[in-house]
Structure formats: C-alpha cells, structure tokens
C-alpha cells in the first residue's frame, strides 16, 4: 500500500508522543520505547491537535472527533459538522475547522458548542495571540476571529487557491503553487502587504528562523516540481520592507548551486524545528532530513501524518513493524 493511504497520525504533546491508528490511540514517552496508555481512537484519523491537558483526534472522513484527556487517555467521541480538518486550542476551548460545513465550531471543556459560518472552502486555521485566522481557499479570504465574542471580526481578500498558510505574530504568509508566489498579509491592518515569487510550484512553507531586529525571518518553502526547499529571506522583516514601498534583499535561494535537485524526489512538505529541518515526499512516503549542504533519507514508507518533530527528536511510525521510532535525539 502506498504510504499516502496509511491512516496513522502522530503528535508530540507536553506529556509524550501520541499515535493514532487503526481505531486506537496510544501515548508513548519521549524515548518512544514505553507506552504510557492506550485507548479508543477513530477509524480514519488524519490529524491530532494538542493542548497541555487535552488532545483531539480528527477524523474528516467520518466527520468525528475524539477528545482525549492526556493524563488518562480517556476520551469522548463527538459528531461534528461535515469534514473537520484541523483545530486549535485556545483558553481551554477547542476551535474546530469544519471544511465542508464551512464553519468554525467552538467546543468547551464542558461540552458547550457554538459555531460561526465561514467563507467558501475554509482550508487552514491558525492562531496568533488571542485571535484565530482562517483562510478560505475558493473564496480567497482570510477571516480574523475573536473568541470573546466568538465572531468574525475582520476579513481581507487575498487571492484564492493557496496551498499553505503560516502565521507569525505580525504577518500571514500564503503559498500559491500556481504562479509560484508567496503573499503576505499584515495581521495588524488586515491588508495585503506584498508578494514575491518563489520556485516553480511552491506547496508548503515553514519558518526556518525567527529573525531578529537585525536579521530577517527566513521561510523554508517546499517545491516538489523543482525537488528543492527554497530558503526565502529578507534583510528586513517582510512587513517593514513592504511598508516602506520596496522589496529589498528578498532572494529566492534554492539550496545547492546550479540547477541540481536538492532531493531525489519531489518533496511537498517541509518541517523545521530548532536546528533540524525535514522534508517529505507524500507520493513516495519518503522523509528526508536536510541542512544547507546536504540531504539524506531518514525513513521510507512513512504516512503523511506518520511523523512528528519535537524537542527530543523526530518520531516516526514504522508501519511495517508497527512501532514508534525516534531519530535525531539529543541523548
């Protein structure tokens, strides 16, 4: 079976590593050797979202979630609006994005539920401070949502059909495969603050460095067409540069020189955690680690959500032996 079709999902929480697969969920310690508890899961999990105390397994196909108490593994399964795909915890409440219901649902610790409608095809939900931001792909808008009151506060039209949304405290970055662009929206003003070209078909992005007052924030951008991760950086922060009406020093840099591919296959996901960088090819299920000068295969036949990066290393579910493995540990 192609790894793309394996329904296994990993997440690193404060209490250990969660693995959801085959209708069950297990919690392992950070060495990946000891199972702390196991419990009932969902049939086709595709994502796990965690807070300090809770986790939620999301099953978009069945339109169900399972709220899990991280300490005990006990949980409750809830029916949701159509196709829940992602969520975020904020102040003890879960905010669940229900794509085909076109809604953001709030589920309290006491089970109280409320929902607000969103624009067409809401595809990404992110959190910055006490606000939630949802990008709707077909509508091409970002909606800013406040939690108290629970409502859409502001909406900005960007462009439709982005394939990823990343947020920092100041800006939203949207990746557009068609046209090879990243567009930036200022969260303060909820206005478009610029765009730049990157790669041939950029699909996924991750922050590679935070940036300081003196150095720029860097984005790592996965480009499966070029088989590269592009490192995109500016001498100043994007918002500052665009606010001043010029784009200075924004350089799309593919690692390695010339036209050589950085990876043997087309990677379409990029993950950066502290000093470690990983790229993933969902068509072959190959997971790579990479630096500025080299890339190497970490594991093959990995499901798209079958790995997670935490402070203590990279965790990968090996479906052949049905075991959690840890790589790149600090030990």
């Amino acid at each position, binding site marked *: 079976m*192609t790894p*793309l*079709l394996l*329904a296994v999902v990993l997440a690193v929480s404060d209490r250990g590593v969660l693995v959801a697969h085959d209708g069950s969920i297990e919690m392992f310690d950070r060495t990946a050797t000891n199972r702390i508890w196991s419990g009932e899961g969902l*049939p*086709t999990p*595709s994502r796990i979202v965690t807070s300090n105390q809770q986790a939620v397994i999301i099953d*978009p*196909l069945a*339109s169900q979630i399972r709220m899990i108490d991280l300490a005990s593994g006990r949980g409750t399964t809830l029916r949701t609006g*159509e*196709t829940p795909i992602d969520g975020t915890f904020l102040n003890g409440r879960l905010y669940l994005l229900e*794509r*085909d*219901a*076109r809604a953001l649902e709030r589920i309290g610790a006491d089970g109280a539920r409320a929902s607000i409608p969103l624009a*067409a*095809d809401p*595809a990404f939900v992110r959190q910055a401070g006490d606000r939630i931001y949802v990008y709707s*792909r*077909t*509508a091409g808008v970002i909606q800013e949502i406040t939690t108290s009151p629970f409502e859409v506060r502001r909406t900005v039209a960007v462009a*439709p*059909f982005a*394939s990823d949304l990343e947020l920092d405290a100041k800006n939203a970055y949207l990746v557009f*495969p*068609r046209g090879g662009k990243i567009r930036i929206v200022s969260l303060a003003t909820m206005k478009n603050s610029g765009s730049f070209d990157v790669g*041939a*078909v950029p*699909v996924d992005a991750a922050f590679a460095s935070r940036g300081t007052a003196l150095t720029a924030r860097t984005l790592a951008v996965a480009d*499966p*067409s*070029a*088989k590269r991760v592009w490192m995109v950086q500016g001498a100043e922060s994007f918002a500052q540069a665009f606010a001043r009406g010029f784009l200075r020093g924004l350089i799309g840099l593919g690692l390695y020189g010339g036209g050589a591919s950085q990876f043997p*296959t*087309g990677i*379409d996901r990029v993950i950066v955690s502290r000093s470690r960088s990983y790229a993933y090819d*969902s*068509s*072959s299920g190959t997971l790579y680690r990479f630096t500025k000068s080299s890339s190497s295969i970490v594991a093959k036949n990995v499901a798209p959500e079958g790995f997670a990066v935490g402070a203590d290393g990279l965790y990968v579910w090996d479906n052949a032996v049905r075991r959690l493995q840890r790589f790149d540990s600090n030990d």
Partner: protein
Amino acid sequence: MRFSVLGSLFLVGALSAQTRIASDFEIRQMEEQIEKSNDFFSQLSGHLNLGDLRMTRNEKAIARIEYAKALEEANIERLNARRASELTRYATATSYAALAQAKLGNATEAFALSEEAIRYTSDSAKSWNLYASAMTELGKPAKAASAARNAVAIASRENDKLDLAIYKYSVASSILDLNQTDEAEKLLVDVVTSLRSPAFKSLRRDVERTESFEIYSTARGEQSAYISLLNRSQLRLARLYEDRGDLMRARQQYANVLADRSDDPTALAAMVRLSSSPQERDRYYAAAFDANPFSLWLIRDYQRHLSGEQTLLSAPDTTGGKVRLALQQMQRNQLIAARQTIDELLKKFPNNDTLQLLGREIDARRSGGSDLRALIAAFNNNTLTAAQRTELDQKTFTSEVVFDAGPPFETGRIDDVPFRFSEPMTFNGAFMSGVPLRLTYRILGASQLNGADALLLEPVRLEPLR
C-alpha cells in the same frame, strides 16, 4: 480535450434496436477504445466506463476488474508525472485514482487521494468535480456537495457553459441526496434550459450530424459530455418531479429522454411506473426489459405485477424477453422450466449477478418449504443413499390431496407440491377432483408437471377426508 466525469448514475443505454441490451454498444465502443488507443485518458476512461456499464448490468465482478485496471493506470500515471515533476498531471492522475478507489468501495484510500490531489489543484473546477464524484460514490453527499459547489464557484469565473452545467448537475445530484429538493430543482432546470438554449445550438447540430447517442459517466469530448449531461439531468429532474407526485412533468421529462434515446432503461422503467393502462404498462415492461434485462428493481417490480392469468411468453428472442419468461415461469411455479431458462441465459452471461441470484432463488424454492420439496431436490440432485432409497421404497405415506382433474386421476397437489401418477388411475368409490381427499401412497421419485417439480407417486388407497 474535454474529459468530464458526470458521476455514476449507472444510467446507460444505447441505440434503438430493441433486440439488443442498451449498454451493448457502449461496451463495444469502450473495448475498442482500450484496444486501439494507448494514451492514459483513453485507457482510464475506457476502464471506468466499462466498470460502470457492467455495474448497470449487475456484473459486479467484471466491473471491479475494470475499476482495478483504471486504478492501476492512474497509479502508473501518478508516478510518472511525479518523476517528471509535472504536478498538475500528478494531481489529475491522483484524482482519478481516488475515483477508482471510490468505485471499488475503498473509502479511506479514496478520501486520502482526493485530499492529496486538491492540495495541488484547488484552483481546478475539474479536480473539485472529481472529488465530488468520488464522495458521491462513497455515499458522502455533504462532502460531494461542498466540493461540487467549489467547482461551480471556480467555473463561474470562467467562460465554459458546458463545464459549468456539468458542475451544477453535480451539485444538484449531491444535494438531492441531502433532500434539498428546491435548490436541486432550480439547478437542474437551469442545466436543462441551458443545454437546450441557443448557446449550444452548434454543438447540438454536431450531435445530430454525427448521430451520436452514447452516454458515459466519464465522457470524452464535448458531444459525449453534452449528450450524457442532458440525459442525466433530465432523468434526475424527472425523478424529482415523480417523487413529489408531479406526474405530468415527470412524464414529460422521461419522454424527452426517450425522444433522444428510445431505449434508455431508466426512462423506460419509469414509464412502467407511470403507465396509465395495462397495455401501456406491458409495452413499457417489454421495452425496459430489452433495454436492461438485469435491473433488479425492474425484475422485482415485474414480479409484483405478474399474475397467473397472464399469457406466457412464447419463445422470446431477446434477452429481456427470456428474463421475463423466467419470471413468469417462477410465478407459475414452473421452477424446472424457469431454471432452464435462466441456465440458458447464464451460458451467454456467466458473470451476471442478477441471473445468478434468480437461479439461487429458484433452487431455494425447489428445495425449500416442505419435506416433500426437499425430497424432490434430493432425487433431482441424486443425493439419496442406497439405504435411504430402500427405506423409502418400503414406506407408505398418507396426505391430504386435491386432484387437478378426473376421475380418472393422474395429477394433483399435496399442499403446494405437485404430484403425478405414472398413469391415470381410477379408485373404488365416488371421488371428485378439486376437493380435498385422503391419499395413501408410496414415493417412486421426482418428476415434472407443467414445467414444475413434482413427485412421482404410486397410489395405495384413496379415501374421503374424515
């Protein structure tokens, strides 16, 4: 080239020659396409359509083989496209892999592949429509409706009326499954009106000129997409009207379908339901069975409709006629004859699930129900041991019987089991046919009576019922 997926309504028909099953022509066309063209879309659409066509005929095993071949083609294309860094091509192939998985009933795989495809082509109305088709196959109408709405939203910004009509039809189909009939009706009326409008005049002229009529769920080219979409939209609209009791409008839509294609099996079956006289119903039954002899709905409906008084079809020369004959024989309890009719059809359609089901039903009736039927089955299947036969030869039985005619008496029934003697018999006493009598007898073996299984008995004594 246009390549449109209309979702599997499993409504396929063909030329107006009534002696041929409606899907015969399309099956031949697709087999030829697969044989002659090697490109990905020819192979893919050929296998998907063949699968759907086989499904309409209840040939599920063959259909699954075709879907598996389509999946294999799509997977090869995915890998090749990815290696070549052609991501749109990769996403398209992934969408079709998802559709094939959905048709094979693999929900998890179909969903994962649909999601993968849409990561790269969320700007493609066609990708969303394929997503919707896969979700419809999986029985997920809310997901299908959302995806189809995305397709409509994208196509609305473009200037392709046929594509837009296809996606509106997808929305309508999905929301009909969610019982949102008002919006579905508006959409379907919109689609049909649009297709019949001057905007499609030139395309209609091409259809007429080329005498095109084939209907496919995965349509290639504008003509094929147009014909298939018009057919299915009208059928959906007609069914919607029929379900809410607006029979006049329903008849009109079905008639429109039949005007374009006189052997559409779905429309003909619907006309059976809407018939206003027994003669009209019989006429539509005959046409509907000829168009698709293997429709279980049609068969069950016909079985409910049948009565003993109906004249038995004599030597029908179409497959539909032979299936009707088998059903009539079953209704008359002529189970041996019915089995023979079905066996004859199975020689021509060995993988047909409907025929196999009817065969099993006949066998069950022949062997079930009473000890006497089980005994007949044992004789027929030669499963009695020598010891059992000897024991049976020595035993006499007594039952309440009714003779069919006489005296002299030759045939009759024990409960609902027919029996016969080896020759007409006369008994001492005044006995009449048609009234219950008490017969003591030996069982000699199994026989036939008017095409039905019967017991061959040797009478010992006949008495009035006490």
